[in-house]
């Protein structure tokens, strides 16, 4: 059944291209550091060399190998993105359904809370919290971004569930005396599965872009390499104004290719699964 459901996706050119780009970048991050086992934090070579056979992406001010940095950075950024998505998703998938199924005062309290978190400018808050953290591992960054990112998803899940709950088959389950939990798992979750999947992808994007933003302002992970950290050092060392393009272009290209391929995957899915957006 799942296979038949997803088959039309593979007819979409947009979906195929973007999933290939995405897989390519994931491989870069996962396999790249193994195939190209250079220490990303080492000082291996001469300073600020443009790409050459020896250093395919050149070196930075401290003689660090930028290809190694970008490969390992891609891995960290993917990890942070994924972790952020898991965290945001878990919160949203708990709050949204509880709010929708319980209704009444529970709904009201949860939704006010959600709206408050939604209206607090979360990038600013992330910056503020990160300021006070001396040690910021990749996990801490993901936690920070994940905890602030869920409200729109919880709201959307709630409203989708509300429209589902009012449908006939769900009413029947209720009359049949199924518990709320069983109702959530058997009738409701499948109804929002594709939406949740697409949101997961968008959360990954939020995590990747959020990490880059925090890093650029000087509040990225305190150890390791990430795409954001590579960019931050490029900015600190004035790489842009000194024309060292091989330092700041590759990490940006990877971020944009990664996030836009993911976004394209979601829109391709939307076009396939959402009849109103489908071209007739």
């Amino acid at each position, binding site marked *: 059944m799942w296979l038949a459901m997803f088959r039309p996706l593979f007819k979409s050119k*947009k979906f195929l291209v973007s999933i290939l780009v995405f897989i390519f970048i994931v491989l870069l991050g996962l396999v790249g550091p193994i195939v190209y086992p250079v220490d990303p934090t080492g000082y291996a070579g001469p300073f600020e060399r443009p790409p050459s056979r020896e250093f395919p992406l050149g070196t930075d001010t401290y003689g660090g190998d930028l290809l190694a940095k970008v490969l390992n950075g891609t891995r960290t950024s993917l990890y942070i993105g994924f972790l952020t998505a898991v965290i945001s998703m878990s919160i949203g998938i708990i709050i949204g359904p509880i709010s929708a199924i319980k209704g009444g005062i529970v709904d009201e309290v949860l939704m006010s809370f959600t*709206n*408050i978190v*939604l*209206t*607090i*400018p*979360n*990038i*600013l*808050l992330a*910056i*503020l*919290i990160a*300021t*006070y*953290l*001396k040690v910021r591992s990749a996990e801490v960054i993901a936690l920070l971004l994940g905890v602030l990112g869920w409200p729109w998803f919880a709201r959307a899940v709630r409203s989708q569930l509300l429209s589902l709950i009012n449908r006939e088959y769900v009413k029947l389950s209720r009359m049949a005396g199924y518990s709320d939990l069983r109702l959530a798992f058997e009738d409701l979750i499948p109804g929002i599965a594709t939406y949740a999947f697409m949101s997961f992808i968008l959360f990954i*994007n939020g995590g990747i*872009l959020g990490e*880059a*933003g925090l890093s*650029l*302002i*000087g*509040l990225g992970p305190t150890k390791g390499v990430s795409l954001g950290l590579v*960019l931050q050092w*490029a*900015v600190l060392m004035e790489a*842009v*104004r*000194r*024309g060292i*393009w091989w330092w*700041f*272009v590759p990490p*940006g290209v990877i*971020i*944009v290719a990664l*996030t*836009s391929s993911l*976004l*394209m995957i979601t*829109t391709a899915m939307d076009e396939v699964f959402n009849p*109103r*957006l489908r*071209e007739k």
Partner: protein
Amino acid sequence: MKGYALRPFLKYVSRKFIFLLVTYFIAITIVFILPRAIPGNPLSTLLRQIFQQGQANPELIRSVHKTLMEEFGLGKPWYEQYIDFITRAFKGDLGTSISSYPKKTLDLIAPVMPWTLILLIPSIITAWIIGNTLGAIAGFKRGSFTDKFTLNFSLIVSQIPYYWLGMLLIFTLSVKLHIFPGQGGYSQGTIPAFTLKFILDMLYHYILPFLSIVISALGGWAIGTRVLVIYELDADYVNFGELLGLKEKTVFSYIFRNSILPQVTGLALSLGGALGGALITEIIFNYPGTGYLLFRALSTLDYPLIQGIFIILIGSVYLANFLVDFVYALIDPRIRLGQSEGS
């Protein structure tokens, strides 16, 4: 506006106002709690550091320490600290900077704030207008070449972070082609003044950061409006209007109007994120705004200044949020007059 029609409008606006006020209060509370709740107490670490540097200028260090103790109220019970904090925040007393002692943080923020506003407001409004128009045209001509091009272009552009686009623009248009200056808000050595020469110089420096925000922000609006317009294309009023002979132009204007309305509230919600992006853009461009000040405060761990900046920034976001919602309530008759029934 007749008297009876005013009530739903006031109700809507005052509800928004109270909500934002409460949220702002919560935000300030978070600002208060954070430095005190985080393990390792960053404030006491900072105090210790100040003492360790004591030999340099013991007199100054001692007075910095005294101010810090007073303003953060360390040593007092937490509720007294809190009440103190809130009352001073509402009075506009945001504490004293450490790195630029004895300047008040408000005096440091006040001169840089206009730069951020001048950068942010025109650019997000421009992006909103261009993005929504592009998206509406694409949605209206769904499936056409224009649509596909606009959609794919917007999808990619929307994923380019402001700051990275800024770097690319600096590299190409400034470093390589020497068309625009690549940093600062005005030429070095000039003094800000209300002269034509200075304003032109400012605009010249303004173009690149402005473009980097406009270009990367418009994609998101285009994508959103395109979907809204596609949904609207099937609306009953569109079909009916067409069969009464309405011109395509008129139908488009109907659809545009109804799709753009939800995007006005979208604008309110996006302000926080846009501000965050703009702060980083300022850092990239060495633009003399709040982002640059924040960056300096962060690198010197000037906590009072950091706190002050956040209280002001979050407050401005809420104020702008409220203004946008106010405008929305004015232009959407369903809110202005109160929707009685139906959808």
